[in-house]
């Protein structure tokens, strides 16, 4: 049988791999727009004090450190959610369970916040509003997580009467309804400075979303494959014993 401890370790290992792949993607696709944004910043603002960290370090070791911490943290919690979901989603095996949990995680943690408060390149946000923007971002994240919990609750409560397919649609509908209401009610932030290239902004936001796709795809496929392999080995050992 699977133990939570072994799942946590596997989740963090897969998260490490997700962090490495996220770094590769972010470095290749995201650093171009960041450099363009910093060039805009330097051309349009009075020269400030030079940063304590060089751009080369920021775009390589710094970026890798951030994606690794992010990947391992997310991999850890992802494996715990997987541990709770596995065996409770009908007959779904480890690979399908991990893929489904990763899809739900991507939509809830990455895509829904991105739709309302998309990632911004450097130089596009005001220093004064950072506290408010951070609060709103995490508020929407919490609302999305609550909407997911509601969807799971509704789906599980109705699966007996409606069947798996229709109960799932009902749960997903509840999730979308809560998210749409939150998107309408929460304030919109528009601080992009005059003259900032829309193409740079678009490319940066796509790079950010793409990085999340890389992270969650690696988590879902990676953990599913690892657990599947472990269970197969155990089955062989049990059969031969």
């Amino acid at each position, binding site marked *: 049988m699977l133990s*939570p401890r072994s799942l946590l370790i596997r989740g963090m290992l897969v998260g490490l791999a997700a962090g490495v792949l996220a770094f590769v993607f972010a470095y290749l696709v995201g650093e171009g727009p960041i450099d363009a944004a910093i060039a805009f910043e330097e051309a349009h603002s009075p020269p400030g004090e030079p940063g304590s960290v060089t751009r080369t370090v920021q775009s390589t070791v710094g970026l890798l450190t*951030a994606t690794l911490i992010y990947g391992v943290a997310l991999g*850890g919690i992802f494996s715990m959610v997987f541990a709770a979901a596995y065996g409770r989603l009908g007959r779904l095996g480890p690979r399908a369970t991990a893929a489904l949990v990763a899809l739900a995680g991507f939509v809830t943690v990455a895509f829904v916040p991105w739709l309302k408060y998309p990632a*911004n390149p450097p130089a596009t946000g005001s220093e004064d509003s*950072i506290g408010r923007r951070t609060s709103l971002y995490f508020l929407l994240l919490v609302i999305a997580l609550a909407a997911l919990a509601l969807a799971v609750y509704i789906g599980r409560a109705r699966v007996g009467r409606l069947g798996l397919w229709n109960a799932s649609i009902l749960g997903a509908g509840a999730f979308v309804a809560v998210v749409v209401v939150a998107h309408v009610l929460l304030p919109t932030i528009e601080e992009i400075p005059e003259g900032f290239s829309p193409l740079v902004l678009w490319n940066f936001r796509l790079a950010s979303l793409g*990085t999340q796709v890389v992270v969650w795809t690696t988590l879902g496929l990676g953990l599913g494959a690892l657990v599947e392999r472990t269970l197969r080995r155990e089955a062989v050992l049990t059969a031969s014993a």
Partner: protein
Amino acid sequence: MSSISSSATPSPAVQPVAIPWRALQPWLLFGAVLAIALLYFVGTEQGVFHLIGGSGVHEFVHDGRHLLGFPCH
């Protein structure tokens, strides 16, 4: 028995066994605390790093903050 069923179907359907909630609870808590702590380091403005190492660490992971979607400057 297993040889017969495996020749008939590619792989025998095994009912997945759930981990009991009681065994899961401390690990779910641990995973949540771990994730929140680590995300806090990268994701929030300055965060604890500001207290530990000034703005140096904030600058160090700065590209990641922006690309991972956290609000920044």
